[in-house]
């Protein structure tokens, strides 16, 4: 168990810059999740922490030790790979004990550690099996077991559930969360699945194009995204982003006119830098949208598509005469149907304001 400190770390392949200066501190015992779209550098950053990938500049420290230029084994990390990476010619117990055996650990110690990992992961019945005789979930448990027996300072998970089917993924997700509670080690987990990120993380690190966009608790990021990227990336369906324009700005009081829509008054923290006439983006989560009868709401809309998900309904709305589409997440009792002519009402307290720089402006209080 240890804290991980990443300072001004970069990674370049020739002229291509993959990681563009990342600073990050992960406290001891934290479950940190790196999340971001494909190619954002999250796996590269994880591999740099493990030592499998060289660091172009900057430093990585685990505990008090600078591991930037150390060989992989000396960093004290253990990694669980997406592909499991089990040795196919070895049994489950041989897979788990391989590293210890190669490093000359005493036999009794090896047996004790393998037994302990097998107990934690309920692998006791499978110790003599070969990987090909195991299901995907069991293989992934063995891969985690192989990490546990090393008693690493930091566990690294590289998209460990991507190869599993949906139901098994949920089950393994719970098991990983339970494992973290049980052994309390520092864990860094890479995924592109925001549900995994939201459910597992103590803190989420959102990466995009080799840079950290925002770091925070799952709720922090969901409720107060720092910029348009984080706002659009977290949340399913994505946040609706509407074009708008500053109508008037007087100190912290700002009124904003939504394109094809109403005038909304908000109070923003000082230093928002918005001036009358300046274009802005308004963000609103699908679950903050209310559907009202046409004429009563602020923005008329037509229901184009309705998706029934059982406990809720996703409605795709189009503003008449515009190309803009808005997604609403409604209760199943909403009774919305394709072709309904309705109007959109905003829950103003839940509006997010982004400037032309893409950064969020902090809300102070709410006024309609």
């Amino acid at each position, binding site marked *: 168990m240890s804290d991980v400190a990443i300072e001004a770390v970069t990674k370049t392949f020739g002229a291509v810059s993959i990681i563009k200066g990342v600073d990050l501190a992960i406290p001891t015992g934290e479950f940190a999740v790196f999340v971001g779209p494909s190619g954002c550098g999250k796996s590269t950053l994880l591999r740099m922490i493990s030592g499998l990938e060289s660091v172009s500049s900057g430093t990585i420290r685990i505990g008090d030790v600078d591991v930037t230029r150390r060989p992989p084994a000396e960093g004290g990390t253990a990694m669980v790979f997406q592909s499991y990476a089990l040795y196919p010619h070895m049994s489950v117990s041989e897979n788990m004990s391989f590293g210890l055996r190669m490093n000359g650990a005493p036999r009794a110690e090896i047996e004790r550690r393998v037994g302990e990992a097998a107990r934690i992961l309920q692998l006791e019945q499978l110790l003599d099996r070969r990987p090909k005789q195991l299901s995907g979930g069991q293989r992934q448990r063995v891969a985690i077991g192989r990490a546990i027996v090393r008693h690493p300072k930091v566990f690294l998970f590289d998209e460990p559930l991507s*190869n599993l089917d949906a139901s098994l993924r949920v089950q393994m997700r719970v098991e990983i969360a339970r494992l973290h509670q049980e052994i309390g080690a520092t864990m860094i987990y890479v995924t592109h699945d925001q549900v995994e990120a939201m459910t597992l993380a103590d803190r989420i690190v959102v990466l995009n194009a080799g840079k950290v966009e925002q770091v925070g608790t799952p709720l922090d990021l969901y409720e107060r995204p720092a910029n348009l990227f984080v706002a659009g990336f977290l949340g399913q369906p994505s946040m609706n982003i509407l074009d708008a324009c500053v109508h008037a700005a007087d100190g912290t009081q700002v009124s904003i006119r939504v394109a094809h829509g109403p005038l909304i008054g908000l109070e923003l923290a000082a230093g928002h830098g918005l001036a009358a006439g300046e274009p802005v983006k308004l963000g609103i989560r699908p679950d903050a949208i209310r559907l009202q009868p046409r004429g009563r709401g602020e923005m008329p809309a037509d229901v184009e598509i309705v998706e029934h998900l059982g406990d809720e309904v996703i409605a795709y709305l189009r503003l008449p005469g515009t190309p803009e589409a808005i997604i609403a997440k409604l209760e199943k009792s909403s009774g919305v149907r394709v072709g309904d002519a309705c109007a959109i009402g905003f829950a103003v307290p839940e509006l997010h304001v982004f400037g032309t720089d893409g950064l969020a402006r902090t809300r102070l209080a709410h006024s309609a």
Partner: protein
Amino acid sequence: MSAASEHKHVGDGWGAVTFICLTVLALLFLAPTIGVLLSAFKSTRDIALGDLWSLPQALYLDNFAEIFANPSVRIYLVNTLLVTVPATAASIALGVAAGYVFAKLPFRGSDLIFLGVVSGMFFPPQIILIPLFKLFNALGLIDTLWPMILIHSAMGIPICTLLMRNFFSTVPNALREAALLEGVNEWQILTRVALPISLPALAVLATLQFTWIWNDFLWPLIFTQSDDKRTIMLGLVSLRGQYSVAWGVQGALSIVASLPTQVIFLFFQRFFIRGMTMGAVKG
């Protein structure tokens, strides 16, 4: 007739044609072997009277008795083993080492070096025959087994490197990385992880190299002079008399000479199993 049954009928027709073609080819390839096999069990008189394909009048085993009684044959077999086993082992060992580096530890320019090594396969041995003779003559190794061992070890490197490099490329990188993270060194990864799952490739190489070196005729012909340094293939030719060809004895020795390669094949064929990497990664 339905479309399905018509299709089946056409398929059967092609199947029969293919079967006949393959049978004819197989017989053509087997014919010389069958001829040699038959003459091994015929007396000299039997051979002189009949043709190559006639069945022996009686099962005649004296040809075998004669070659087993011949002390030279034992020397030929031992010499051949002394060349084949070390040269096979050396060429495979070097090919494994080089193949692992090219597949898993590439460095700047390694692809070019790999190309250079593999292009060695395309040199006809005749080109290097005279320089090699001069070299081994200068080293005083003519009429010893060393030239054959060294040449076969060296000439086996390209094919062994190519095959092992290609096989190691299919071993997932994650296996090596997982082992590296566990503090396992590169040599242990090669011997404990990469090689055990490369048994099919090793089996193919061992069979190929053993057969090729065992059956070699050219290099022993060039580098050996005395009878006690001959390998089995040279011995086979030298078994004829001054005025006659002992077909029966040569046939018997041909069969004996081919036994080790058959045994090697039978031994290794059980490792020719695909899917050894199954279960290593997503499967």
